[in-house]
């Protein structure tokens, strides 16, 4: 054994250490991707007033379509003089990276989609009440929900100073129609033709009347610059950096641990109130909340758990609360006996005390859902459709169905004990708790259930294989839910119960009722809002009778932030505070 000289060993160790540290060293300062453009004196001097001149006074939009004309852009005028933002910098903790913020790379609807919208603009923008308002557009007019005449605001510029015109809009929509995007390609495929008439006017003709078009497409699809995206094939969409948008913020830096956005001083609604938005990725909710306490971040994008609302309401911390549109429900597999029997589904609905779930699991911070799927706060909700809880009636229905209690108290139906498995997602602790309470409630009426917890991806595999409702499903009952945007377009209720798989893309229980399909088709095509509301009410009543799923609750949303850092947050109904609206003072409030 020839011992190495000690110095050699020490040297090797030192070398290894140096290599490691070199790898952790700050990246060599590369040329900034988007150099903060010094405002050109000529442009900076210009007030943002032009927008005001474009607001058409004539209300050519029939009230019936529900699309307001652009409001006089007074807010732009008031925001314009603010040369310096009132808050220099704000740090907002997010839970996961959201790709490069190019429209094809975001991961989560909230806050990912909303972060993306700080960089990009769409023709219209949902306001705090989720009503689409013209944004890049100065006005959107239609009489038949089939032909949309759009006038753009004049003088809108991309972040690199080039003008954004109707040609960019046409290019964008045609691009998204061709190059599939999971969110807005389907809605945009309603388009038949787009014709432009000069840089500020375009006309979009649809294949059929579609009153959802403004919400689903015009207020959703971000306009992207032709110069960057022309001829980019699908497989390369994710590589295009989000350097040049038109939104209130410019993306300066996007890594998988942090994002840096900088205010666009030339934004057509005026420079946004916060000079710099920083989004650090903090994986653990608890850590993010602690960082809020220490002041390392000034807002947390994730929902505050119900039990934390109180402690985070003490100054300078503040909590913004509002209704949430993300639903929680108990899904039946109607292909699996006995859930093919309406009385059995009705009995299970009657046996579950939704109010108790809200009070116990959400500590009261939630809304009891009604069986018609539509959120009770929605203007389209039929108030006659109410949540039910009646144990005696549930037992009676089960008796009628021929389910007789066995010796152990568990009912037996057609020779089989009524014992079922409820799937729940490991990522969703509240759903697991709800499922556990439901076990007790169903036991009361003689139905035995057990909870099986799997990761979300594994649950999807059993309930909604490959996100394709025509594929076989392998479950009995599942805790499930649909995200908030679903409630924003009232016609989307049909997506979850229509028996045609190209319409009922979310009909994961294989529910089928020709009468419901007929009304559903009418809901989707109804142009007149009053008629649509009446049809949605009818649809809700059918769902309330057939119970393809048991609607449980909508959890209220609560977000914590430091009011001493920034207090201009705007709660967008059903969605939250990390939205574009929070940084567009005077717009959409």
């Amino acid at each position, binding site marked *: *054994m020839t011992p190495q000289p000690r110095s050699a060993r020490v040297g090797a160790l030192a070398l290894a250490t140096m290599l*490691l540290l070199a*790898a*952790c*060293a*700050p990246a060599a300062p590369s040329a900034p991707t988007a150099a903060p453009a010094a405002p050109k004196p000529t442009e900076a001097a210009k007030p943002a007033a032009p927008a005001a001149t474009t607001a058409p006074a004539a209300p050519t939009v029939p009230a019936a379509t529900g699309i307001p004309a652009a409001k006089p852009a007074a807010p732009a005028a008031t925001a314009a003089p603010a040369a310096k933002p009132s808050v220099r910098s704000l740090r907002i903790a997010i839970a*996961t*990276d959201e*790709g490069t913020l190019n429209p*094809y790379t*975001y*991961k*989560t*609807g909230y806050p*990912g*989609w909303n972060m993306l919208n700080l960089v990009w603009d769409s023709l219209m923008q949902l306001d705090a009440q989720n009503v689409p308002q013209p944004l890049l557009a100065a006005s959107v007019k239609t009489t038949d929900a089939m032909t949309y005449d759009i006038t753009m605001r004049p003088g809108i510029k991309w972040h690199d100073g080039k003008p954004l015109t109707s040609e960019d809009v046409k290019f964008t929509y045609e691009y998204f129609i061709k190059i*599939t*995007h*999971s*969110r807005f*390609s*389907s809605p945009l495929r309603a388009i038949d033709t787009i014709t432009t008439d000069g840089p500020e006017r375009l006309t979009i003709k649809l294949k059929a009347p579609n009153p959802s078009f403004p919400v689903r497409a015009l207020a959703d699809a971000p306009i992207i610059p032709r110069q960057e995206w022309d001829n980019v094939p*699908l497989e390369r969409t*994710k590589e295009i950096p989000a350097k040049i948008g038109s939104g209130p913020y410019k993306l300066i830096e996007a*890594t*998988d*641990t*942090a994002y840096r956005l900088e205010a666009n001083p030339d934004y057509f609604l005026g420079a946004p109130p916060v000079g710099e938005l*920083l989004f*650090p*990725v*903090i*994986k*653990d909710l*608890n*850590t*993010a909340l*602690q*960082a809020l*306490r*220490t002041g*390392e971040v000034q807002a947390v994008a994730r929902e505050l758990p119900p039990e934390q609302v109180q402690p985070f309401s003490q100054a300078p911390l503040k909590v913004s609360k509002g209704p949430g549109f993300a639903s929680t429900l108990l899904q039946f597999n109607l292909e699996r006996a006995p859930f093919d029997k309406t009385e059995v589904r009705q009995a299970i609905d009657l046996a579950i005390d939704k109010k108790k779930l809200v009070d116990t699991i959400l500590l009261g911070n939630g809304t009891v859902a009604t069986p018609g799927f539509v959120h009770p706060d929605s203007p389209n909700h039929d108030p006659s459709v109410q949540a039910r809880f009646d144990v005696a009636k549930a037992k009676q229905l089960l008796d009628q169905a021929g389910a007789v209690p066995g010796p152990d108290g568990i009912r037996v139906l057609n020779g089989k004990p009524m014992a079922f498995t409820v799937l729940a997602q490991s990522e969703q602790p509240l759903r697991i708790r709800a499922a556990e309470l439901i076990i007790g409630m169903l036991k009361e009426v003689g139905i035995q259930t057990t909870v099986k917890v*799997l*990761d*979300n*991806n*594994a649950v*999807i*595999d*059993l309930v*909604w294989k*490959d*996100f*394709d409702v025509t594929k076989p499903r392998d479950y009995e009952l599942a805790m499930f839910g649909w*995200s908030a945007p679903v409630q924003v377009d009232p016609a989307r209720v049909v*997506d979850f119960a229509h028996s045609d*798989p*190209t319409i009922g*893309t*979310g009909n994961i229980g294989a529910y089928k009722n020709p009468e419901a399909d007929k009304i559903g088709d009418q809901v989707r095509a109804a142009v007149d809002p009053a008629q649509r509301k009446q049809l949605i009410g009818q649809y809700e009543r059918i769902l309330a009778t057939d119970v393809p799923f048991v609607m449980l609750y909508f959890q209220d949303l609560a977000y914590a932030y430091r009011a001493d850092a920034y207090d201009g947050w705007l709660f967008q109904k059903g969605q939250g505070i990390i939205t574009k609206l929070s940084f567009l003072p005077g717009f959409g409030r």
Partner: protein
Amino acid sequence: MTGFFGGKVAQYALVLFVTITLNFLLPRLMPGSPLAYLAGEDVGAMSAQDRARVISDAGLDRPPFEQYLTYLGNVVRGEFGYSFQQKKPIGTILLDRLPWTLLLTGTALLISTSLGIVLGAIAGWRRGRRTDLAALAVFIFLESLPGFWVGMILVAVFGVQLGLFPTFGARDAFARLTGVDYWVDVGKHLVLPGITLVAITVSATFLTMRYSMLSVLGEDYVTVARAKGLAEPQVLFRHAVRNALLPVATVFLLNVGQAVAGATVIETVFSYPGVGRLMYEAVLARDYPLLQGGFLMITLSVLAANMLADLVYPLLDPRVVKRD
């Protein structure tokens, strides 16, 4: 000796091949699919043709065996493709994370090993006395603590109450620090996760060392050393500790191999950009390319550490070499 060596190489090659194959198989055996991350959040609203297009673009519609052959070819060429969720080359993602992982796990490993050896030696030497019992109690207590809990307590006390250390991340991503300031910042960020990791790993070394000391102290050569009239420190360090280090060296080398895998729970609590959390999220997303690349990296480092152990052991303890 050449036969011994050749056999070893063949053995390693076989293990490598089997793990490369398992790295392909295991992610695909999990229920679920990467579709949601490939297509985007609103995959449910897409048409069947669009979904099929996404699947075929990722090459997931081809027969599994064909996919496997492509994968083997790519591994040989050192190509691992793009991550389904991050849309970046696997090599870039792993190389971004690796230095931070090694900084955290490496620092913690060195500290916990040194601490474990010294305290384990002392405890063994003073078996049954007050020092030993106190140390034993402390380390068994530490052993039983869950890592995330220790981390949360440290964050609450040193981050929130005292404001001494940052609570998340490996560095301040926004401060644009350079030079000494940068390294001070990195060091500050390392303190709390480092202490947490040391706290939950030190007991293994301590207990191994203590136990090993106890068996060594009963050996004849220790009695001889004492009979020769050597001073106690000489007996302790020259004769007892050096021999007692062997099992600890094994534990250490195994840990070195594992260091690349990171420490998922601690990375989660402190939002440290390590490999552990990366792999955990890759599992949830069914990100096959990232799982394949990441697990291959971990496999290689474990094998390398084992190989190192194989090579170093005869030097540490000539008795393990078979004499013909």
